[in-house]
């Protein structure tokens, strides 16, 4: 039996995996690493960037608040005066749990993985609100380029710190680039603003020990796949069924592995059931196949919003491995 890491590599390289890679099994994500303040359910917090988030009790996650009182950046031309970069340096005490976790990982079996969120695109609209951030791409492109470069530099400085501390092998990087049926911006606009900064960032991570870049965007983004490949992404996590994943695998398989196809919005809800999950897993595995594909809920971490859903998907994937391998 192959290790989790070997099985992943066989899957990604079109070789001989002996089972499906099962969701996030190959990543050991070091969530203890310090990054920034995150809200908990029921909280309203303001983080180190000055962005205020609300996480209403009973809801699935936090939302940035963008009314006039809370929006950080109201005029992109003033971004240098307004946007203050948080420190990326943390005390030994803050790092200790992350280092302990990283040291406990069997690196022959799994990747010690950095979790990085929010990505540069998300940061622009977290700071400005979606409408302002999107319009500024047309109206004030030079300032947007500057802001994106600034945000990328922040990521690189954080990368230096965490690479030194935990010596990770993989990066799990969040940045949602679309909604359910379309990317937020055209591929050309995406290339103009985000391709080069991402190439720079992902090259830096890879030049410093990262072997695997897993990018999360639980959305439609099929039209951005060539850019994903160009910027150095190895695995796109969060690929939704709206992308026609089997076709993407045929077209781009050797260059990119697709992780998802189990839409969390459809499967992960209060009245979920095992049978429906098993049906979706079966369809995903049969239509996407054994190579360049990892069946996984589209949620951006290794758990579900409702208890039992993630485990039910894991179990169903194991069953499909028995049938198809």
């Amino acid at each position: 039996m192959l290790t989790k890491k070997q099985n992943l590599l066989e899957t990604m390289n079109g070789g001989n995996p002996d089972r499906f890679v099962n969701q996030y099994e190959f990543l050991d994500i070091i969530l203890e690493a310090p990054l920034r303040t995150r809200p908990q359910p029921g909280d309203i917090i303001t983080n180190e960037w000055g962005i205020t988030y609300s996480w209403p009790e009973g809801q699935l996650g936090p939302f940035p608040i963008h009314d006039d009182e809370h929006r950080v950046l109201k005029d992109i031309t003033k971004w240098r005066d307004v946007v203050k970069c948080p420190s990326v340096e943390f005390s030994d005490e803050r790092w200790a749990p992350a280092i302990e976790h990283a040291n406990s990982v069997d690196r022959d079996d799994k990747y010690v993985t950095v979790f990085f969120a929010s990505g540069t695109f998300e940061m622009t609209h977290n700071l400005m609100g979606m409408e302002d951030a999107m319009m500024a791409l047309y109206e004030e492109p030079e300032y947007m380029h500057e802001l994106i470069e600034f945000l990328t530099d922040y990521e690189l400085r954080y990368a230096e710190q965490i690479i030194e501390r935990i010596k990770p092998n993989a990066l799990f990087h969040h940045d949602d680039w679309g909604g359910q049926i379309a990317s937020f911006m055209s591929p050309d606009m995406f290339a103009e603003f985000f391709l080069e900064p991402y190439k720079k960032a992902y090259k830096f991570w890879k030049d410093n020990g990262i072997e695997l870049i897993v990018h999360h965007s639980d959305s439609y983004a099929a039209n951005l796949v060539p850019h994903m490949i160009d910027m150095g992404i190895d695995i796109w996590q969060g690929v939704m069924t709206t992308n026609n994943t089997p076709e993407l695998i045929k077209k781009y398989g050797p260059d990119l592995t697709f992780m998802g196809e189990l839409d969390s919005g459809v499967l992960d809800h209060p009245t979920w059931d095992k049978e429906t999950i098993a049906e979706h897993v079966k369809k995903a595995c049969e239509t996407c196949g054994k190579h360049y594909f990892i069946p996984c809920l589209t949620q951006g971490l290794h758990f579900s919003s409702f208890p039992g859903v993630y485990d039910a998907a894991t179990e169903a994937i194991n069953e499909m491995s028995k049938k198809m391998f």
Partner: protein
Amino acid sequence: MSKIEEVKAHVEKGKSKIVPQLVQEALDAGEAPQEILQAMVDGMGVVGDKFSAGEIFVPEMLIAAKAMSKGVEVLKPHLAGDSGISLGTCVIGTVAGDLHDIGKNLVAMMLESTGFKIVDLGVDVSTEKFLNAIKENDNVTLVTLSGLLSTTMPAMKQSVADIKASGLTGFHVIVGGAPVTPEFAKEIGADGYSPDAGSAAVLAKKLVTA
């Protein structure tokens, strides 16, 4: 290309710095304000169709809406009385428990461009707030509920049911958002569903002018 055609073309391209000047030039040339407004509405219709077809994306839709809004500012003093295009008032909001606003905002912009007066209740809107807004505003012809979370679908269902059972009349209720399907919309008693902002405007106009 006539001045009116130029106005329409520049709205479609989202030229918010040029459109006000073109509107003024069209007025100076003696074009009827109503026709200039109609040209901008038609331009936004093209934008909505292109958005629905995946030919343009969110930034293009936003700058087009802004361009139209700038044009309307110039036009407004010339639109006496009821000579503007009015499809009535639309009450819009994201349902209780859901804080997503992008989709709802895009729909509101498209509806405004089509000729609705917009009463935007924001996000996390309770049924009571929807009902109060319907009561407090004149000529409400459309109520639009948005929701992006599967967990807030029950809230959407409840709001639609309560609005329908309230005894208030004269409006259609439409719903949308990522987890909403035409089947779900029908099941909860909504009068219409659309998958995106462009087609929401088309649907809304069709419903209120039928």
